[in-house]
């Protein structure tokens, strides 16, 4: 089993003159569930985007490694699965088409068995051939989980993971966090206490404002 490691070294982020957070340091290894908490506007999503290599920190750095070897930034997307409210899938395609294109663009073969299993798990199998634009917000949120997990990533980042989900959907997510957290790195960014209950260690972004 591969060992994933994520190290944050003095990560700071400012937008113009506004400080978002300062001097964030942590080290995460496989089999960790890490929580990021803080009220609205505290910078949870910003930190998530920095971890996912979507935006750069103003200073400091994040080092992603697999089995002790640093992962090159251009390869990083293959190791990360992200679920977030600002993630949008293609409305003009069906769920199956979306997932098929994502596999092809990633350069991996479409694992039909795994995708069907995930579709069943997230109760979307019967709607897999419907256009995403016909989905409810909760169904779109479930599809984002399949998108994030279909390539078996070692770092799973869940930003507001239970938004728009019903109780049944939330239970599936908590189960997933437990399962994935036992072998991979799972990061949960949320201001919902129940989302953060499973985390083995947490940071509150309010503590990184000065």
């Amino acid at each position, binding site marked *: 089993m591969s060992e994933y490691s994520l190290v944050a070294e003095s990560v700071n982020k400012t937008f113009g003159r506004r400080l978002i957070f300062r001097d964030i340091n942590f080290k995460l290894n496989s089999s960790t569930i890490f929580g990021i908490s803080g009220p609205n506007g505290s910078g949870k999503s910003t930190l998530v985007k920095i971890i996912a290599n979507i*935006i750069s920190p103003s200073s400091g750095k994040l080092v992603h490694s697999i089995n002790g070897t640093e992962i090159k930034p251009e390869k990083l997307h293959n190791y990360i699965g992200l679920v977030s409210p600002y993630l949008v899938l293609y409305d003009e*395609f069906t769920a199956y088409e979306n997932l098929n294109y994502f596999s*092809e663009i990633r350069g991996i073969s479409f694992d039909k068995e795994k995708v069907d299993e995930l579709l069943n798990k997230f109760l979307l199998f019967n709607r897999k051939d419907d256009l995403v634009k016909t989905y409810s917000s909760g169904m779109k949120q479930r599809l984002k989980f399949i*998108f994030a997990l279909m390539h078996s990533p070692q770092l799973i980042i869940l930003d507001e993971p239970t938004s728009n989900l019903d109780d049944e959907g939330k239970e599936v997510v908590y189960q997933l966090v437990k399962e994935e957290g036992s072998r991979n790195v799972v990061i949960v960014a949320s201001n919902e206490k129940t989302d953060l209950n499973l985390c083995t260690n947490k940071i509150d972004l309010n503590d990184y404002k000065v």
Partner: protein
Amino acid sequence: MKSLALFKKDLNSELRTRYAINALAMFIIVTLSIILFSIGNERISQSLTGGLFWVVIFFTSMSGLSRVFVSEEERGTSLTLQLIAAPSTVFSGKLLFNLILVFAMNTIIAILYSALFEAFVLRNFALFLVSFILGNIGLAFASTIIAAIISKAGAKGTLYPVLSFPILLPLILTSVQLTLFAMNGTSFETAKFELAIVVCYDVIILTVSYMLFDFIWKE
């Protein structure tokens, strides 16, 4: 292969949403109609015909080629692309899509233009073909990287032609000259300087695009 998959996704998306094709088709029809109406029964000179040909191409490009990145940004799917592909894959896929679109669009313009304008007679067709291909490649390269830049900006619609004009000017001017050479029946030997300019333009724009795209793509 990954770029090809992205191209396939974009093509299917375009066929379903008609995001760029409709805008391009309407622009070609409207521009050619306006030119025809404004000319009336006048017989226009060869040099004006060659110039107008590239004017139609430039403005039609401005109406549709930015969509390749702007549509992703407007729908919020840029982040999805960032999570599934390396920047070079995204740029190559989008470039391939714009290349095909530019060639299809400009071939239609050239056919309609030849049919509608009597003065558009090509005496050296081979020279026209070479300059047309090189010009289209340069247009696709430049318009793709400019589309990537403006997709992150606020006033996308206005910014695209404004930013494109100075960048495309050397290409358009040289292509107009080469089209005039082709209409006059000038030989390749005489036109080799202009051909070299277009080749250099294509190579420089492509190299700079790949070097800059990482910085443009990542906020």
